[in-house]
């Protein structure tokens, strides 16, 4: 009837707009390292599928309803001398129809939604790699109870194997967000939440805390490093050296030196002197008050305020994603953490001298 040509006309205008929107949505995703629109794991794909289902329905409704609105605005604008419009008060049939149609569309969204809710709530099987995620103000700790690894900042996962994250917090509520692989899960003190995923590609991806957690909430990022099975095995072996979960972190200096030389492919005696000098500064500068470190008396501690630094040199960033791991950045951080990350809980007992900082930088970088 008289509606049909109008709909056709507006469909011609709106369809390209809608298509463009979707293209922008999907096309730009590549340029955003933290995007949710380019899933790299099974959980995230499930989520993406539900999201795209709602996007298509929403776009259809958007075009029809906004189209009807725009049509009415253009068509029924006041014309001088026009008679008073018909004083309609409603139309029961029409009103029933436009109650039922949205309800039906919602049902079509609800069915896959509920299916996905139950699918994502399933616990992974025993073959999954267990990782404990612990939120801290303002960094993330990762523990691998089966592999006996304690680390922070970089979450290494083996591609192709399901990873089950068991998550909690040492202080306030945080939210662990891995956009490319799953979604978010809030972490609560004295409670464990979980989320799982299986990475289907290798690479380094970023994620960050998504629940406001205090002054440095904005700088509480981490990296997910998806390794090939071989890379993951190598990483596991190197991280186990000096782990607080193995023999209480006890390891002789010479064994540590051998491991570090192997990890750095450098067997020169220079390594020994850097290690000796660095350890002295690490102890004298007060670092051990908050950080576990292999070869120090605190190597076996697991409840300290700061992250375990035994393999800090292998991590991608400093201060929870604030700076890339370079010598200059590490030096800036050690000179004055508060200038890099205002409000950070790392307080130096006394300022470090330039010599001490460069000794520490060299020492920490060796701990791969």
């Amino acid at each position, binding site marked *: 009837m008289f509606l049909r040509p109008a709909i056709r006309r507006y469909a011609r205008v709106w369809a390209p707009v809608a298509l463009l929107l979707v293209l922008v949505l999907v096309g730009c995703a590549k340029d955003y390292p933290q995007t949710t629109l380019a899933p790299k794991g099974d959980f995230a794909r499930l989520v993406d599928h539900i999201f795209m289902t709602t996007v298509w329905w929403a776009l259809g409704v958007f075009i029809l309803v906004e189209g009807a609105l725009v049509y009415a605005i253009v068509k029924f604008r006041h014309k001088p001398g026009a008679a008073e419009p018909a004083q309609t*008060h409603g139309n029961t049939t029409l*009103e029933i129809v*436009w109650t039922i149609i949205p309800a039906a569309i919602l049902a079509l969204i609800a069915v896959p939604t509920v299916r996905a809710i139950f699918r994502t709530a399933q616990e992974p099987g025993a073959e999954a790699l267990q990782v404990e995620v612990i939120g801290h103000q303002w960094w993330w700790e990762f523990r691998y109870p089966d592999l006996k690894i304690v680390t922070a900042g970089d979450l290494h996962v083996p591609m192709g194997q399901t990873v089950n994250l068991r998550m909690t917090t040492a202080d306030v509520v945080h939210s662990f967000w891995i956009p490319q692989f799953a979604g978010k899960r809030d972490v609560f003190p004295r409670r464990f939440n979980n989320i799982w995923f299986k990475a289907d590609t290798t690479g380094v991806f*970023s994620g960050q805390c998504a629940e406001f957690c*205090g002054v440095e909430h904005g700088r509480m*990022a981490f990296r997910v490093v998806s390794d090939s099975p071989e890379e993951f095995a190598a990483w596991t072996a190197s991280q186990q050296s000096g782990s607080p979960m193995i023999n209480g972190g006890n390891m002789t200096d010479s064994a540590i030196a051998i491991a570090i030389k192997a990890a750095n492919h450098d067997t020169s005696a220079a390594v020994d002197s850097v290690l000796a000098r660095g350890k002295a500064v690490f102890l004298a500068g007060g670092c051990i008050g908050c950080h576990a470190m292999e070869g120090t008396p605190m190597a076996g501690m697991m409840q300290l305020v700061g992250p375990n630094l035994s393999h800090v040199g292998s991590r991608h960033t400093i201060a929870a994603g604030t700076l890339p791991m370079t010598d200059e950045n590490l030096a800036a951080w050690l000179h004055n953490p508060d200038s890099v990350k205002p409000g950070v809980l790392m307080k130096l007992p006394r300022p470090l001298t330039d010599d001490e900082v460069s000794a520490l930088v060299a020492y920490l970088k060796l701990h791969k």
Partner: protein
Amino acid sequence: MATTALDHAPAHHAEKTGLWSWITTVDHKRIGILYGATAFAFFLIGGIEALLIRIQLAQPDQKFVSPETYNQLFTMHGTTMIFLAVMPLSAMFFNYLIPLMIGARDVAFPRLNAMSYWVFLFGGLVLNSSWLFHSAPDSGWFGYANLTEKQYSPGANVDFWIVGLQILGIASLAAAVNFFVTIVQLRAKGMRLMRMPIFVWMSFITQVLLLLAFPVITVALVMLLMDRQFGTHFFIPAGGGDPILWQHLFWVFGHPEVYILILPAFGVVSEVLPVFSRKPLFGYAAMVFSGCFIAFLGFGVWSHHMFATGMGPFADTFFSLVTMLIAVPTGVKIFNWIGTIWGGQLHFKTPMLFALAFVAMFIIGGLSGVMHASPPADLQQTDTYFVVAHFHYVMFGGSIFALTAGAYYWYPKMFGKMLDEGLGKLHFWLMLIGFNVTFFPMHFVGLNGMPRRVYTYPAELNFGFWNLIETFGAFTLGLSFLVFIVNVYKTWRSDAKAPADPWNGATLEWAIPSPPPEFNFAELPVVVGRDPLWELKRQRGGMLPEPPFHSGQGIHMPSPSYWPIVTALGIAVFFCGFLVGFPYVNIAGVLLTFLGIYSWAFEPA
């Protein structure tokens, strides 16, 4: 004796001026104007906070403000816009319009009404005074425990937030009781419930929501205050408490609060669209019942703010389905608005433009809302800029556009002068463009991984381009309100008087002079149907003549009183005792409150 009464009457209703007359006023129209002016001032403060946020985020790794200041800015922006801008702007319309629309001379409890305003003002001042002590609240408008506990927020920041919200809550509850009783009791003869103007209906539902939702936040805030100051452990896990309990309590209040912010806007738009379409509201009954249904369901969806907390699949399913269900009555409203303008004669005056834009923007906000009603999808979207985009489309694109429509529509009634149409249209286009440029890109930025409440972001995440665009949009929005201020100023200076019925209105307030006399109606109206004024004009075959002057002789109105402000001051002082940590201040506040109530009770009417 009769002569004495006559001698007194004109003096009683003479135009009252001066500061004292405003402080002691119990006239619902003056209180409405006070609400509006105060709320607009807070709206500008909240807007400036938003612009500072936008400057900080315009580029990656900026250091325009410190992280601490940024956290205070976004907390105060949210708290201010919700409690000090949108709610009291709605309260301005409740105050000014409800008695006029139902044909009453004032609200049921005029002095309680004055007290509500003063309590609101003091609450807003206490909350904002925190800036002077460098202790502005910094934990978000949602104040999630256990971050807000003493251990993690040792400063006075959170105490300011708790105390400010408690004071404001009393203002809201007192006002809600007042308007509830007013609407139930004081309607004109013949105005049955289903003949009430739709704005009054939506306001009525809002009062019910306020009465049911605010006690919950009051209790939660008392618990948090006791945790912080008296050593309880309601939300402290080490003492057996639970931070998730806070989230449930907060959102049991927080989600109905969303409807408290939007239902008055629905009411305004449902009044404006018919008048400028020259057609009655389409599906009046469906509009009323969908409003009731939305409000009812609004109490069963709170946990959709908490899908990421891991509630388990059954709770997720329930809250997801109820949330989706809310889209049905909301859709009914949108279709009825389109049905209202369909087949009409649309006059694009400024209020109409804002009302139409409201419908267009609200559709977008509603659709993005359906997207995160799905818990798996919400696991990606929650706490990102996608959600920021969503709720600004419903709160700004919805509430603020509708309230602005209302401001242009009822301005002539309130002040007896017309706002300038040219400047009004400039305001409209700047606001519409600025709004979309600010908030539409946030959908993409959020989906592409930008979380909320971060004071900056690293360059490698590539959020810089769209954030810069958003900042330009935000300043365009700011500019649009400058145009509005210029418009008001220009109108203030002009001598042109507005007629009683400039828009060919349908409701009772257009039958009386602009601005109305203190007593509103010289003769209380009798109503025989909906759109009573249209009915009358149709019978008379044209516009009504200007209403004649009436001196108000013989009409009894409540006399001014300063006890409401004294009582309000007592309430504020009582709560401030928790800020200074000196119990004598609390006691002084209680005594002052009782003095105010006692004196008020025995004051001659």
